[in-house]
């Protein structure tokens, strides 16, 4: 009772990074509150997965193993999650802000009439005093997220309704196995009691999912292009430079929205957060939406025609010039000097 739940997402039977990141954060919060960290696993043929979950700090693994849970469908997952939450009364429930989490977590919040904060970038525990009633609360979950296109950071609390629910994007929080893992207790979910016949009304006719190919989070060097790359053709310069330097290509939301680059490479509040050794921002103005996802890079180099672009305020090196002139020169002089 009153423990912390983390909904575990599986990708082809493997635990998604975001779920391990949530367990890492959940472990920290659970220790602070003196409660258990409980993973909720809905899938098919999932035995063995509990070991991974224990390595990342789960005390308990609630498990429903049946073919109707994979691939993910909204209604069965919603009903089972709601049933388990009602039975177990966790105080906090965390979901990945993935297509899955963002699809069904709102339904869970709606069914349970409790708040859900989307895309949190930080989670903390702290007290709260209601400004109107003066009522004081201890140990609330601070759900911290950017809002309004990233121009403000809001701390949201959910004082009176339970559970307190939040989604967190992949790559925003660190994942770290616990120092001395203990085996997790595996408990079956009484899912047949929670499922309604109409939950199976939606059927999947066809599904074509590519395996994950791009992983820019782990790259030491990232060459990121923005709207200033001008076109999809122009954006190719980023790939040229990344290839020569041994880095990965990233993009701002503006570049992705303009179709220069696929969404998987998007960096920022609505993309991934990266912390490379070197971040080269090409034709990126530096809206907060973007910088929130890269400002912790060890070194930032910007190329922009506007000497006053906001990105230059956080850059270590600011080159004022056109990307189509500067990038070929960087390639040329890198090759000349690196030998």
């Amino acid at each position: 009772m009153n423990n912390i739940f983390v909904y575990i997402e599986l990708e082809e039977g493997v635990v998604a990074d975001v779920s391990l990141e949530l367990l890492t954060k959940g472990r920290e919060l659970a220790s602070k509150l003196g409660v258990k960290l409980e993973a909720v696993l809905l899938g098919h043929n999932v035995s063995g997965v509990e070991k991974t979950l224990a390595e990342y700090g789960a005390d308990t693994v609630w498990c429903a193993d049946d073919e109707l849970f994979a691939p993910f469908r909204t209604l069965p997952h919603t009903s089972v999650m709601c049933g388990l939450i009602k039975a177990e009364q966790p105080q906090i429930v965390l979901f990945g802000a993935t297509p899955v989490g963002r699809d069904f977590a709102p339904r869970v919040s709606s069914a349970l009439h409790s708040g859900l904060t989307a895309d949190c970038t930080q989670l903390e525990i702290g007290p709260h005093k209601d400004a109107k009633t003066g009522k004081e609360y201890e140990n609330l979950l601070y759900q911290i997220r950017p809002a309004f296109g990233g121009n403000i950071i809001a701390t949201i609390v959910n004082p009176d309704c339970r559970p307190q629910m939040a989604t967190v994007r992949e790559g925003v929080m660190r994942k770290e196995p616990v120092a001395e893992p203990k085996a997790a207790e595996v408990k079956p979910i009484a899912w047949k009691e929670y499922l309604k016949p109409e939950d199976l009304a939606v059927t999947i006719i066809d599904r074509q999912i590519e395996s994950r190919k791009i992983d820019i989070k782990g790259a030491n060097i990232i060459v990121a292009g923005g709207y200033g790359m001008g076109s999809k053709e122009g954006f190719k310069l980023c790939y040229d430079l990344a290839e020569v330097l041994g880095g990965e290509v990233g993009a701002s939301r503006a570049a992705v929205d303009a179709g220069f680059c696929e969404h998987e490479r998007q960096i920022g509040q609505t993309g991934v957060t990266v912390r490379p050794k070197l971040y080269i921002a090409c034709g990126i103005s530096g809206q907060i939406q973007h910088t929130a996802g890269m400002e912790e890079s060890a070194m930032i180099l910007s190329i922009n025609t506007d000497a006053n672009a906001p990105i230059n305020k956080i850059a270590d090196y600011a080159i004022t010039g056109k990307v189509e002139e500067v990038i070929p020169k960087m390639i040329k002089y890198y090759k000349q000097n690196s030998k």
Partner: protein
Amino acid sequence: MAKQVPDTRNVGKDAMTPEGTVNRAALPAIFNPEDLNALELALRLKDSAEGSTVHILTMGPQRAADIIRDAMFRGADGGYLLSDRKFAGSDTLATSYALSCVLKEIGADIIVAGRQAIDGDTAQVGPQVAEKLGLPQITYAEEVIEVKTDTIVVRRRLERGVETVESPMPVVITVNASAAAVRPQNARLVMKYKHAMVQSEKAAKEGTLSAELFEQRDYLKIVELTAADIDCDEMQLGLNGSPTKVKKIENVVFQAKEAKRLTSSDEDINELMVELIAGHTLG
């Protein structure tokens, strides 16, 4: 379902007040972009099924009637503006409660909305409405493949692929930006609907041609609803009905740090590469 939003994509210097709150007046109000994709998906359904109609449901201040008119200029038949101080301060749950109360009364076979609004980026209202109505949902919809007698087949866009699902109707569908772009305004419809208004807008135009036409032509009447007009529990509206509370707001300010300034000259770029290689930043 659609929302009028401040255009957070083009935030200017005066978008934030010195106190760190949002200066809504300085931001242009626009039709939420993915709601336009949703409108197009709905209009295509209307085109393919004779006798069907498309209505916009939005919650917001009086000026949100602008997006209903905009939708009518593109092919929608009318709309509902849910407007009341009692809705102020609604979080996504209170918003979805209010919208679902209206939808219970007006009814629809297919409820379409954008995936998310650019001022909040939460993507919650669509699924929350579906839950409150007890309907299935199809999120991230890209295209309707087929409408059968009682079911609809839709292709969804996921992060790394596509999925085609079949759902019974009624259903709530949320639409991705990757779906077809909205059609332009139609000159004939602009002429037809340019005097479309809600009752409270008409009050300010008393005695004008606009007001006269409004009285004569029913298709110019955009339905305006207050909390009193819908069958709802007022404790679930606005701030009261919102479990989440904003504890603190911080304005994001860049930390000032001096960047080393370079030009695009060969000398500068050469020196830079030498420096980065020497410092082992580049291998």
